[in-house]
Structures are given as C-alpha cells and as structure tokens.
C-alpha cells in the first residue's frame, strides 16, 4: 500500500505541473506553488516504510517545488524567481503560525482534534523549526545553480542531475537528519537520512527528466 500511495502522489505531483503548463499560465503556477508548499509541509510529519527504507513523505512535493523552480528559471526572469521564493516562504511561514495558534487553543469539550494537533506539532517541533530553514536554503541554492546551468551548453542534463544530487544532500541533511536526530535519536537518524537521500535523488531525477519533456509540450491557449 505504501508504495502505491507514494507512486500515486508522484503522479499527482508531476501531473498537476503538466496540466498547469499545458492549459494555464504563470499565475496558476503560483497557485500550485502555494498548494504544494502547504501539502509538503503537512506531509513532513509522516514517515513511511517502502522496501525497508523509512521515507519522509514530504520528499515528493518538495521535489515538485524544486522542479518548479527549474521551470521558473528557464521560463521567466529574476523578478519572477524572487517572487516564487517569497510566495513559498510566505505560504509555509503563515501556515505554520496559523496552525500553531490553532493548536495551542483550549479545545471544545466535544473536540479531540485540537489535542491531536497539539501532540503532532509539539512532538515534531524540530521539523516545524527546520522545515522552513531547509526549504529556504534549498530554494536559494537551486535558484543560483539553475541560473548558472542555463549558461552551460555541454552535458547539461548530466550536470543538472549532479547539481541536484548536491542540493538534495544539503536539503535532506538539514531537515531529515537533524530533525529526526532530535525526535528519535542520532544513530537511527543517519539511517533515515541516507534512505531519504537516495530515494529523493531518484524521485527528483525522474521528475527532472519528465519536466524537460513537459516543457517541450506546446501550451494550449485558453
């Protein structure tokens, strides 16, 4: 079941990018960015096991955000790229604050959910703190790298994949390693981080190859 859901989320993630690219415009990409930011943040609380590897579920949609950055760098100017980063950070930070404010309220006597919210957020406080930091570092790194890669003509695909391998290393080790080091313990955390690193590399490489194909598809004018 875990594998099927993971695959389904991957298809949804890349499928929505394809639909927005083909049938809509830049503005809808921003809307998708907001949705992906919140989904990715919420999924970061969930850890699942696939083929013996423990994977943080946020990796699919955070890969989607990095790939949309690639799309923006290749299609639009610097102003839009900065706007893209600001949109993501504002979405994540405002959702964290609003959800945290909600979770610290005294719940209704009929309500069990607010207590669960509180437990979920305060048990995973390390994720809440590290998630925006890791995302911001990743976005800044990827925006710089993709801009530099635009100037490269030779072996661009291979160089982009290698760059992604480097960016993912920083992302996974800031978020996954340190947060699970606090939540679980350091020894187990390194195993989770290594597993996540390899899975995220595979996910983002496939996404990158698919996105290159998607970008060649002509837009349908609405």
């Amino acid at each position, binding site marked *: *079941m*875990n594998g099927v*859901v*993971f695959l*389904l*989320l991957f298809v*949804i993630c890349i499928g*929505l990018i394809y639909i927005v690219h083909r049938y809509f415009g830049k*503005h809808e990409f*921003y*809307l998708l960015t*907001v*949705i992906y930011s*919140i*989904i990715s943040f*919420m*999924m970061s*609380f*969930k*850890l*699942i*096991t696939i083929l013996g590897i*423990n994977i943080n*579920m946020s990796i699919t*949609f955070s890969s989607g955000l990095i790939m949309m950055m690639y799309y923006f760098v290749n299609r639009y100017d610097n102003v839009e790229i900065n*706007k893209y980063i*600001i*949109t993501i950070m*504002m*979405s994540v930070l*405002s*959702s964290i*604050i*609003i*959800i945290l*404010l*909600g*979770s*610290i*309220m*005294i*719940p*209704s*006597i*009929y*309500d*069990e*959910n*607010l207590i*669960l*919210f509180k*437990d*979920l957020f305060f*048990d*995973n406080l390390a994720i809440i703190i590290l998630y925006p930091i890791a995302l911001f570092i990743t976005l800044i790194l990827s925006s710089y790298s993709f801009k530099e890669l635009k100037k490269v003509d030779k072996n661009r695909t291979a160089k982009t994949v290698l760059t992604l391998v480097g960016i993912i290393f920083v992302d996974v080790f800031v978020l996954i390693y340190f947060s*699970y080091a606090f*939540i*679980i313990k350091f020894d*187990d955390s390194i195993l*989770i981080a290594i597993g996540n690193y390899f899975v995220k590399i595979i996910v983002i490489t496939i996404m990158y190859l698919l996105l290159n194909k998607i970008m060649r598809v002509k837009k349908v004018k609405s």
Partner: protein
Amino acid sequence: MNILYLVLAILLIFLLMVIFYKFWKKDGLYLYICLMSSILSIILIGSIDILSFQVSIGIPVIMGLFICSNIIIQRYGLDEVKRILYTFGLSYIITFIVVSLVSLTFIKDYNISSNDIYDLLFGYNFNNFRCIISNFISIMIMIWIGSGIYYSLRKSKNILVISNVITAFVISFIESLIFVLIAHIGNFSGIELFGMISIRYIFEIVVAIIGLIPVYILVKFIDK
C-alpha cells in the same frame, strides 16, 4: 486565553491579505484565497468552546476568504466570481485529498505515535468527511450569493461599510446554517444546534466587522 489567540490569528490573517495585495495586487488576492483555502482544509476539524457552544477555529480564515472576495468584487467586478470559486474549490479539495491520501500509509519502525496522530487527524472518517463537505458547500454558497448581494449593494449605494456589513449579516447566517446542519445534525440536540448556529453567526459578524479595517486600507489607501 482562546480569545487572545483568536485575535492574533484574525490580525495575522488580515495582515497577510494586505501584504499579498500590496505586493502583487489582483494576483496577490488570488494567491491569498488559495493559501487560506489550503490552510482551512487542514485546520477546520479543530473546534473550541465559545459561551459553551462548539465553534470551528477555521472561522477567521473563512471570513478572510469572504472579505477577500468582497475586495475583488469591489475592485474588479462581478465577472471574477467564477475565478474566485475555482481558486477556492480547487485549492481546498486538492490539499484535502492529497494530505488525506497519506493517512493510508504506515510505518514499522520509528515515530509511530506521530504517524497514528496524523492518520487520526486526516484519515478518511465519516466526521472529518462531513466537516470537509459542509465547509466546502457553505463557503461556495457564501462566496457565490455574497458576491451577488455585495455587487448589487455597491451598485445602488457605493458606501464601503454598508455594503460589507449588510452582506456579512446576510451571508454569515446562510453559511452558519448550512455548515452546522450538514456537519452536526444527528450528533447534537435541536437546542445545541441552534446555539451553535447563533454563536457561529455572531462570531463571523464580529470577525467581518474587524475585517473592515483591511478592506478600508486596501480599497481607500493602498491603491492611492
């Protein structure tokens, strides 16, 4: 203490609206609708007691959506309603479906309690589903009818406060009625349901009146 947190949440929600509009104008307001819809699909299942009646913590977000749609109608006309409805509906449903989909997965080794909590919160259960559906229907109707009322009021008498307050009075009642009836009928007695509708209605009116401040800032000052 709840009141203090609610006030903070309301201020933040309206401040975000002003920031989004200041930087990105019309596109910013749509981004705001998208952001609030996604957040709403996550927090609406939580509720607090106000005067011993259960009230959803998502109300400030709902009123943020209502006020934002009023600002769009005020500035860009009634033609925008369809786009507002699409933006709200798609953001709300996509976030809910994808976040809930993950609750079908499981973990063997680590962080089992957090995974269980996630599944309880966002899993496919009847009460969550009722809450999500009732919110979806009530907000769609609120935006759709509210825009019509707001536009006709604006056309006959273009006084910002009157258009907003009258629309809020009518539309909050419809929204509260639809939401409480779909989400809670069968779980509570008639008196409790009446109390829930009344408290939700009064709370929405209060938030809408506070929301006049960002409306004024946006419509009267920022554009000038």
